[in-house]
């Protein structure tokens, strides 16, 4: 501790910028970890909070995915003696048409029975109509708003507001305000309550509810009540406590977690290299100090401890800062994840701030500190081994010995060989990931040798650009690998991550385009909302023939997309007339005869799975899907799998005949409309809108606009990838800034000599700039190479574990080339300040600098 105070602290104060950059290395790694996990946890918690707030005192919920619960089930549940209260619920989100307010979560409830489960906490007032639920019910335009929402929009009791409904915009009267606790606090306070039967009509639910909330009868334990309800409703319905919905969240977010963890691991590894780099340089510079310490009697262990304590302190400080930055990152990431959850569950939540468990925060700080210790270990060990006599001699430089390099090369080759053997034999997924780790390690170990060779081959080029400065820059790289190898490795890792992600994105994008070309070939699409994925509103199936009668229309295909419970976790069912759709869309299964598959599917004898669903749920052709349905568990054979991007978590196609028979649901989410030859899509589009303008709210998209919409949604889906790319680039740039700063400090005497023997300011600048550009280029070339490897593993991961997509390996050459100006430009910018600092330094001090 005394040594830290006496020696380390003055060093840190003297080299403030370098210390900041060292901390930044850890900070960024920890921030990525915290940001990614924080966003995930925030959304999970917001999800749980919304579920709990809306659930109120309900102990159990009866649900059946998005297919809903028929009214008869409510009666059956209410007849159970062990049930104290049972109330139906419809949950939907409406566009408020209010500037800046976004969406409003509307709960349809039965006021007569619901108040025993939910406390609406209505604000008092003699004329408060909600005091009498019957009055509320008698007026189907009644709405109760959260006070927060009402105040934000200047709405009072009695105000009339217009909301978009399935029947077009409708006016509602605000007949009560809820205090902003409990239920009114859900969905960021944007909550409204309306009568359940009005909601059924407005949201096109027919004679169904989204779920039934249950409170057990007095004196009856939850389990008994649950069993009794289960016995009455049958296996086709989930009867679970509200909290269990949050457990499903974990299952769904698994693939996201893999990506999050992969990015975090890379970010932390890069942190290791930045720490290693900074400490190696610091130890080179403080060799004299270490020599004095050793000469004064400090043992090797004392020196080792001092430097380890330094790296732990740096790690701790960097981690705490990273925690702060990570929480900010989580805040900006959580809306993206929140959207994904809404897509999956239809449970709308709005993260309010960032919530993260103290354990995760502690883990982040511990990880950051550990990473710093790992990065600092080798330099600390070499500091401890410094020979005091040699250390006190001036003018010696550190060069990585050839022996040290040979050991690294051999270790790298062994690791790579093991990793390749794993790829060939592929025993289990876990071992495959282990092999990925080994390969990354092998490449990292090999990077000093590779960068040496690349720098050697760059030398003639740099010499050609600037004979003196270019040579000096290249030689600096070649002769001082200890100074540059860690940065090169950090840049390499960052860019490999970027190239890997870009390659996967591009492959998915290409496949998505193919799918769009094959599947989305109708001339027009009719949907109830502007968003193709929003499923709050539906059309009656009878509209199919009504649209078909519009002049110019040749064929209309109704599509119902609905999440049903597949072994307790929702899965997207795409309900169509399979034979009809197959007439227009070529189904290309990866594992079945297409004719037979379509034949059986159209007869309702099975389902066509997306490869994504097959991989995520571990299902293959010939297996049986066990779907929760009103008839109990419905067993549907899997007829084949095909690439299908209908849903991120995978989907399955079943025939309308099967769906209608079992679920008795005669609604559609969209219509695919084919026109007669020669018809103008825009003209027919207008005709459809006109035809339904009086009684339906609908949106008609042309083929081009739907494609654009899907591509836009895909861009959002890739948002996470772009963030990762950005992080990778920031890390690369930071690594270069770090190295250039320490490199200039390390080479201060060298640059001083250059000036002393006649180097002009521009020549000094050029040397520094060219060195930075050379470091960037070496890191870039290695990043390109390693990116080729990570891309292979990423594609295998996507295919075998995360999304079930059999992606082609196509190296993203364009992206890789685009990185060249980015990295070279960044390297150049990174060198500007250090170059000026080198010129500003006193020449006399520089020449005496050790």
């Amino acid at each position: 501790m005394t040594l830290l105070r006496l020696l380390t602290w003055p060093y840190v104060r003297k080299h403030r910028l370098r210390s900041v950059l060292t901390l930044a290395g850890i900070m960024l790694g920890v921030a990525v970890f915290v940001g990614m996990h924080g966003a995930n946890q925030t959304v999970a918690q917001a999800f749980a909070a919304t579920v709990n707030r809306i659930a109120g005192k309900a102990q159990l919920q009866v649900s059946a995915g998005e297919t809903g619960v028929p009214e008869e089930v409510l009666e059956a549940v209410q007849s159970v003696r062990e049930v104290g209260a049972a109330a139906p619920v419809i949950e939907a989100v409406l566009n408020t048409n209010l500037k800046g307010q976004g969406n409003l979560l509307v709960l349809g409830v039965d006021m007569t029975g619901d108040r025993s489960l939910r406390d609406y906490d209505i604000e008092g007032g003699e004329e408060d109509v909600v005091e009498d639920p019957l009055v509320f019910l008698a007026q189907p335009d009644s709405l109760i708003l959260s006070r927060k929402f009402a105040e934000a929009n200047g709405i009072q009791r009695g105000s009339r507001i217009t909301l978009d409904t399935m029947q077009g915009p409708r006016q509602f009267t605000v007949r009560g305000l809820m205090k902003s606790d409990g239920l009114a606090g859900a969905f960021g306070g944007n909550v409204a309550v309306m009568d359940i039967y009005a909601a059924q009509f407005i949201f096109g639910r027919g004679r169904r509810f989204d779920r039934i909330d249950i409170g057990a009868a007095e004196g009856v334990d939850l389990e008994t009540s649950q069993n009794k309800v289960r016995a009455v409703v049958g296996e086709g319905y989930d009867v679970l406590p509200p909290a269990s919905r949050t457990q499903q969240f974990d299952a769904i977010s698994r693939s996201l977690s893999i990506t999050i963890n992969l990015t975090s691991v890379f970010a932390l590894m890069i942190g290791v290299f930045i720490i290693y780099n900074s400490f190696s340089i610091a130890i080179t510079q403080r060799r004299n100090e270490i020599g004095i310490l050793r000469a004064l009697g400090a043992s090797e262990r004392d020196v080792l401890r001092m430097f380890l304590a330094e790296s732990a302190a740096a790690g701790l400080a960097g981690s705490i800062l990273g925690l702060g930055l990570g929480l900010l990152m989580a805040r900006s990431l959580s809306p993206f994840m929140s959207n994904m959850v809404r897509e999956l569950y239809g449970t709308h939540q709005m993260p309010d701030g960032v919530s993260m468990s103290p354990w995760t925060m502690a883990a982040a700080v511990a990880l950051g500190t550990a990473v710093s210790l790992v990065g600092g270990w080798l330099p600390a060990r070499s500091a401890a081994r410094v020979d005091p006599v040699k250390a006190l001699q001036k003018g010696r430089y550190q060069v990585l010995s050839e022996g040290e390099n040979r050991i690294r090369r051999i270790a790298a080759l062994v690791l790579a060989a093991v990793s390749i053997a794993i790829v060939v034999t592929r025993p289990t997924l876990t071992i495959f990931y282990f092999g990925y780790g080994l390969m990354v390690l092998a490449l990292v170990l090999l990077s000093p040798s590779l960068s040496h060779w690349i720098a050697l081959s760059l030398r003639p080029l740099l010499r050609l650009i600037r004979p003196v400065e270019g040579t000096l820059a290249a030689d600096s790289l070649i002769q001082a690998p200890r100074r540059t190898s860690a940065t090169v490795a950090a840049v390499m890792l960052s860019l490999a991550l970027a190239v890997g992600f870009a390659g996967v994105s591009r492959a998915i994008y290409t496949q998505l385009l193919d799918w769009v070309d094959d599947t989305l070939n109708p001339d027009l699409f009719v949907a109830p909302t502007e968003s193709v994925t929003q499923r709050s509103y539906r059309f009656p199936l009878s509209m199919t023939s009504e649209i078909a009668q519009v002049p110019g229309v040749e064929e209309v295909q109704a599509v119902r997309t609905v999440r049903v419970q597949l072994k307790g976790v929702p899965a997207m069912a795409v309900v169509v007339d399979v034979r009809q759709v197959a007439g227009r869309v070529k189904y290309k299964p990866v594992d079945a005869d297409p004719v037979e598959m379509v034949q059986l599917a159209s007869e309702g004898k099975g389902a066509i799975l997306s490869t994504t669903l097959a991989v995520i749920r571990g299902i293959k052709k010939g297996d049986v899907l066990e779907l929760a349905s009103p008839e109990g568990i419905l067993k549907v054979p899997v007829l084949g799998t095909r690439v299908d991007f209908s849903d991120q978590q995978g989907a399955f196609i079943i025939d309308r005949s099967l769906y209608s028979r079992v679920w008795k649901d005669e609604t559609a989410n969209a219509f695919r409309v084919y026109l007669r030859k020669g018809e103008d899509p825009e003209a027919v589009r207008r005709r459809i809108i006109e035809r339904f303008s009086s009684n339906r709210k609908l949106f008609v998209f042309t083929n081009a606009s739907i494609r654009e919409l899907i591509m836009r949604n895909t861009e959002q889906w890739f948002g996470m990838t772009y963030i990762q790319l950005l992080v990778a680039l920031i890390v690369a740039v930071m690594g270069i800034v770090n190295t250039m700063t320490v490199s200039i400090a390390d080479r201060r005497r060298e640059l001083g000599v250059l000036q002393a023997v006649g180097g002009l300011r521009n020549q000094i600048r050029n040397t520094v700039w060219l060195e930075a550009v050379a470091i960037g280029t070496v890191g870039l070339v290695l990043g390109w190479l390693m990116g080729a490897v990570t891309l292979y593993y990423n594609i295998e991961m996507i295919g075998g574990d995360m999304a079930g997509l059999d992606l082609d390996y196509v190296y993203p050459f364009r992206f890789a080339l685009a990185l060249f100006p980015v990295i070279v430009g960044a390297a150049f910018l990174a060198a500007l300040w250090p170059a000026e600092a080198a010129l500003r330094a006193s020449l006399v001090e520089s020449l005496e600098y050790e």
Partner: protein
Amino acid sequence: MIRLSQVSKCFDGKRTVTALHPTDLHIDKGEMVAIIGPSGSGKSTLLNLIGGLDRPTSGEIELDGERLGGLSGDGVTRVRRDKIGFIFQFFNLLPSLSCFDNVALPLHLRGWPRAKIQQRSQELLELVGLGARMEHLPDEMSGGERQRTAIARALSVYPPVLLADEPTGNLDSATGADILRLISDLHQRLNTTVLIVTHDMQVAHAAQRILTLRDGRIADDRRL
């Protein structure tokens, strides 16, 4: 050749330290001058000011007819590279460059053609007796060889002034004597003006004139 008029140097810190009080000095062309004095007396400061490595707080320095005071940073560098050769106690060779490349470096910085650089560097290394060590890195050479390389580098354009700061300070006495002989020899053969800062009286007595500095002032100026 070298003229100093009321040149002083102060260093500002928590308190201002005067390293060199206002000093007048004139050194003729071809003179070999030793500057001696205890540590902190201002010897190196004086040498650095004459060599344009540092700027004086006051006064004017004229070198071969050129006034350094009015020149920009690059202007001083140009004077330095055309008129001055430096020899340092710790050699200050670039560790990544070979013996040959270290000598060639100032010529490259002057933009000389490659063939001319090759010829001049070889000639200089032969002159200092290192014709056989051209491809060696500094780390692969003895202290004496390194200092010879540094001397060859300092002579790259046969500058009229050679400034040496403790050129034998980091060498054993035999090698030191050897280096001193080389400097004296070059001084005589090339008629170079030589200024040597030293603690070693044996080195000082090899010069024609000895300046003794004490507490930032010239305490004695003696011609031998």
